[in-house]
């Protein structure tokens, strides 16, 4: 079978174009955040909440969930992100606000007791759920969303930094992974996306 190479090349181009178009067209909306529809599995976890009780994703089913990994001793990215997200939620219309929940997952269970997480998240607002769990469960969750975290060697005072994802994973009211918010996005940009998801316009 001898198909001229030019015809084959053209075929490949058409094929890759089709793949590209298919990749772009699964959303009819221009999101400010990165659209991750279909790329990641539904929200699922087995963790411990800020009262020390075991919880799963069922706990706040039906809400748009903004999941973020961090630790309470985090010097920069965690407080900035939590502050940003709580501003996003605070300025939403009441109707939408009750359908949005921020999930702060501490990946530093050694230092972050449920009580410590509770004080930490309460400082930032009232629609934030603090979560943590055994390292194994946290590894499982981060692997599920294709991220990771690592611990630095502790200094003489026992302090150490934790490397973790800077992104916010947004799940819609059905628990499907929808958006990945990058750290550099502004409050207004995030709010626009969250409002659309919370009011069911997308």
């Amino acid at each position, binding site marked *: 079978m001898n198909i001229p190479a030019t015809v084959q090349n053209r075929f490949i181009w058409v094929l890759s174009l089709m793949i590209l178009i298919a990749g772009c067209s699964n959303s009819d909306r221009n999101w400010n955040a990165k659209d991750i529809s279909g790329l990641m599995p539904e929200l699922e976890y087995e963790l411990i909440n800020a009262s020390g009780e075991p919880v799963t994703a069922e706990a706040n089913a039906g809400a748009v969930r903004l999941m973020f990994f961090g630790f309470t001793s985090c010097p920069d990215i965690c407080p900035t992100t939590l502050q940003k997200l709580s501003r996003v939620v605070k300025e939403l219309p009441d109707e939408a606000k009750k359908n949005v929940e921020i999930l702060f997952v501490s990946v530093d269970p050694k230092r972050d007791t449920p009580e410590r997480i509770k004080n930490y998240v309460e400082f930032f607002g009232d629609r934030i759920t603090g979560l943590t769990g055994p390292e194994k469960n946290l590894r499982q969750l981060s692997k599920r969303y294709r991220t990771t975290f690592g611990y630095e060697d502790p200094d003489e005072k026992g302090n150490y930094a934790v490397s973790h994802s*800077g992104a916010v994973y947004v799940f819609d009211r059905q628990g499907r992974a929808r958006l990945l918010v990058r750290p550099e996005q502004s409050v207004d940009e995030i709010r626009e996306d969250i409002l659309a998801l919370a009011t069911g316009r997308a």
Partner: protein
Amino acid sequence: MMSAAEYLLPYDFSPLTILAYVLVLGFYAYGLFGMPESERPGGGRIFVFCLGVLLCYAVMQTRFDYYSQYMFFVHRGQHLILHHLGPILIALSNPLPVMQHLYRQIPKALRPYLAPVGWIYRVLQQPALASFLFFGLIYLWLWPPIHFDAMLSRDLYWVMNWSMLLDGLLFWWLIFDPRSPITTNALGYGKRMLCLAVVAIPQMILGAIIVFSRGMVYDVYEVCGRAWPMPPETDQLLGGLLTWIPPAMMSILGILIILRRAMRDDVNRPTHARAKEVTQ
């Protein structure tokens, strides 16, 4: 702390991948023991074949895969093995006699059903298409939006790695086909060298673009966290160098190997032999 055994266990366990490797090694061993001793490859070739297969396995189903997912330069190293080094070793080990022996074991009645595989193979082995696919796949998976998605989606990630491995096997088999183009219809030596040169240039350009870009080209490693704290610029620089230098070197090495084969074949050329007879 992780024990040594844990480093050897897969980070992302893939039963299909393990099955594929078991089948390849199993059939290879079955062919080796079943074939007549005169045709059997020597110990060195068997070793090179197994080394190539195990290298590819190691970067897909050990802890190495974890680092490939969270460090750009380790990811480039993974593809260097899947798309270059592993397939090069497998092709150079010349498993053709083993495959021919295995093919003879297939009942004659079944062989017509394998014909479509042969057609697809022959289309993919057109030198122009094979070369285009070889660097085209590198460009496709390193195109920033696609790379981002591939690192986020488990399915896409597996498609990416398997497509690189299969394409690497096809391309390097075309280049290092042990059959001489003088006596068989294997690709001519000149065309093989041309293919190697053609695929080297786009890889060097891409590598250089990554190395010299000031901003972050692949921010997915920023967004999803790195395996250990390394400055992003260093990670990108190392990854760019791995895309640029080793593939270029492998192309040159490949050209030298082909050149040697061409010279050897030229000496043994039937026309020369006849010329010798005539002059003697």
